[in-house]
């Protein structure tokens, strides 16, 4: 079966006065129809940039996709014309951003923002678009949807705005939704509501979902597959269960050990990852994680490990991947 989305050797760089930032550095991954893929990593690791590159939303200057291909339903999104990409954005691939206050237009009514997209992409009449907008708002759990059409974003709470964003993302029956930290700005009980809603809707409508997040709990609850990013590279990919129960990259291992868990005895000391993430303008010819890695060897300073499949769809980029299970058990 062909993949819905196939990203190959994607490179996105930012040309700044401080130097070239290699935000996404030779990243390849794919998304299957209807699945939920999580991209995890810390701030500045390139997870958002890799998603924005898919829709060609990287602002130039200073940012630019400098290499690679992004195949979506048979087309290379990096080579199609500006007009064509506009028929894909919001139509076949839509986005849900982190901050619902800044991603909705504050001076346009909720109704107008919803119907504009549908009139443009689906060619619906205003009447039909309005009808569908009401259905969508009801579908995402907004009470009294007819009245909401005339309201503005500031009338709504953060959770409600994020529901509107989801309605907007679903409005044109997309094949893929990219959600960039969709619940980071929300409180935990509201976060749970929004995530349950997204899970339910994507399953029901068969929409594939890329969730970008730094929250390992959310990933465990909602994702089928997980890509772990560090310093612009994918360093581990696999089924969620593989990543959590059999992490093969020292960074993934470190991430899992550094979060306090609700289901473990209290008061056990956390094991943080030492040091800081590297400066992306000064990456050298070694593994970017080696300075923080407990298991680093000489080879790590001289050669960049590439992503290798270890079996069963689980891949890792580490020179000591074969020994990691023993090292893990010993530490």
């Amino acid at each position: 079966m062909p993949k819905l989305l196939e990203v190959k050797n994607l490179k996105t760089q930012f040309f700044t006065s401080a130097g070239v930032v290699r935000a996404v550095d030779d990243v390849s991954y794919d998304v299957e129809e209807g699945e939920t893929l999580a991209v995890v990593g810390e701030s500045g690791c390139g997870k958002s940039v890799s998603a924005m590159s898919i829709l060609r939303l990287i602002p130039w200057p200073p940012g630019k996709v400098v290499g690679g291909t992004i195949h979506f339903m048979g087309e290379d999104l990096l080579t199609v014309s500006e007009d064509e990409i506009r028929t894909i954005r919001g139509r076949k691939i839509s986005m849900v951003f982190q901050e619902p206050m800044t991603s909705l237009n504050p001076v346009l009514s909720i109704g107008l923002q919803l119907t504009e997209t549908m009139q443009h992409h689906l060619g619906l009449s205003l009447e039909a678009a309005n009808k569908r907008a009401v259905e969508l708002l009801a579908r995402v759990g907004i009470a009294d949807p007819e009245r909401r059409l005339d309201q503005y974003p500031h009338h709504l709470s953060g959770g409600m705005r994020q529901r509107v964003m989801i309605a907007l993302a679903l409005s044109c029956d997309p094949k893929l939704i990219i959600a960039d930290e969709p619940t980071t700005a929300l409180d935990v009980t509201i976060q749970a509501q929004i995530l349950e809603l997204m899970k339910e809707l994507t399953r029901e409508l068969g929409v594939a979902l890329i969730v970008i997040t730094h929250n390992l709990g959310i990933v465990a609850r909602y994702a089928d597959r997980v890509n772990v990013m560090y310093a612009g590279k994918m360093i581990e990919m696999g089924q969620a269960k593989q990543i959590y129960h059999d992490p093969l990259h020292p960074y993934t291992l470190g991430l899992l050990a550094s979060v306090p868990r609700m289901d473990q005895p209290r008061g056990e000391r956390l094991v943080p990852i030492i040091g800081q993430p590297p400066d992306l303008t000064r990456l050298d010819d070694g593994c970017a994680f080696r300075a923080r890695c407990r298991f680093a060897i000489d080879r790590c300073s001289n050669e960049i490990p590439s992503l290798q499949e270890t079996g069963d769809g689980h891949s890792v980029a580490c020179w000591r991947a074969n020994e990691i299970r023993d090292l893990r058990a010993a530490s």
Partner: protein
Amino acid sequence: MTLATERQPSSEVGVQAAEPSFLEIRDLKMYFPVTEGTVHQKVVAHVKAVDGISFSIARGETLGLVGESGCGKTTVGRCILQLERSTDGQILFKGRDLTQLDQKALVPVREKIQVIFQDPYSSLNPRMKIGSMLAEPMRVHGIIKDPKQRQARVNELLSVCGLDPKFSDRYPHEMSGGQRQRVGIARALALNPEFIICDEAVSALDVSIQAQVINLLEDLRRQFNLTYLFIAHDLSVVRHISDRVAVMYLGNLVELAGGDELFDRPTHPYTRALLDAVPIPDPEVESHRAHKVLQGEVPSPMNPPSGCVFHPRCPLAVDSCRVSVPQGREISPGHWVACSQV
């Protein structure tokens, strides 16, 4: 609703109180006026940010204070710091009521109570070098008068917080978020405080850095015999660091218990919903968990619901919850809950 918590933390949480009440909050209320009009302002309503809460903290203990945005947890911290003058109630710090002290009398108290803020970007002056930032409180309070000795103390503070003393000559923009937060912690330690309010002190940090800072806070507590009020919305972090935990909802305290007790036997329906909402980083565990999602949203504190403020979202609510305000009661030693239905 009020939770009377004059009790000392029970021994199960492993804290022995040397003094009976290091900090005691009694029926604290903080109402912010809502005004209308520009020239002739008149008060049209009040936001009841904190509506009568009571709790105590023993010396050397960490009390976690959790709740969602707008529940009043930060306001409680600001009232203790006397950054807000509370509307009503008492704040007894080692027996003295801070609400009765004037600004001058507060100066020596401020040495003893310090704060670490959430955002390491906005809480440090971008035009000040780290060194002068750390030396300033010592100068203002006249702790160390000799500039050389002050610099020595600055270097000591930096190394205690895991930073190289060379950072003393740097500006905040030259540092990462985690390093800045360490500066915020060093600044809080500058005056040898006894009590530190950590207001979302690790929330803005990435997980790998967050763990470093949590460990640092725990080490400092032991090393300097500090007492923390740890205000946060991340329950897994609060559970990890706190001896006892208080849960707030819409200006009220709904539950308070020792850490193990609260997380093993959450009793108030709001606490239970909060715990249910926190995902556990393990897909196996998550696939077996029932995800009961709390419906609705937090009402406005300007016009809070009658009776129990949680009743519109509560799965256990009965008619009487709409009318009567539940009183806090102790359901087991040291475990207080304000709900009539549990």
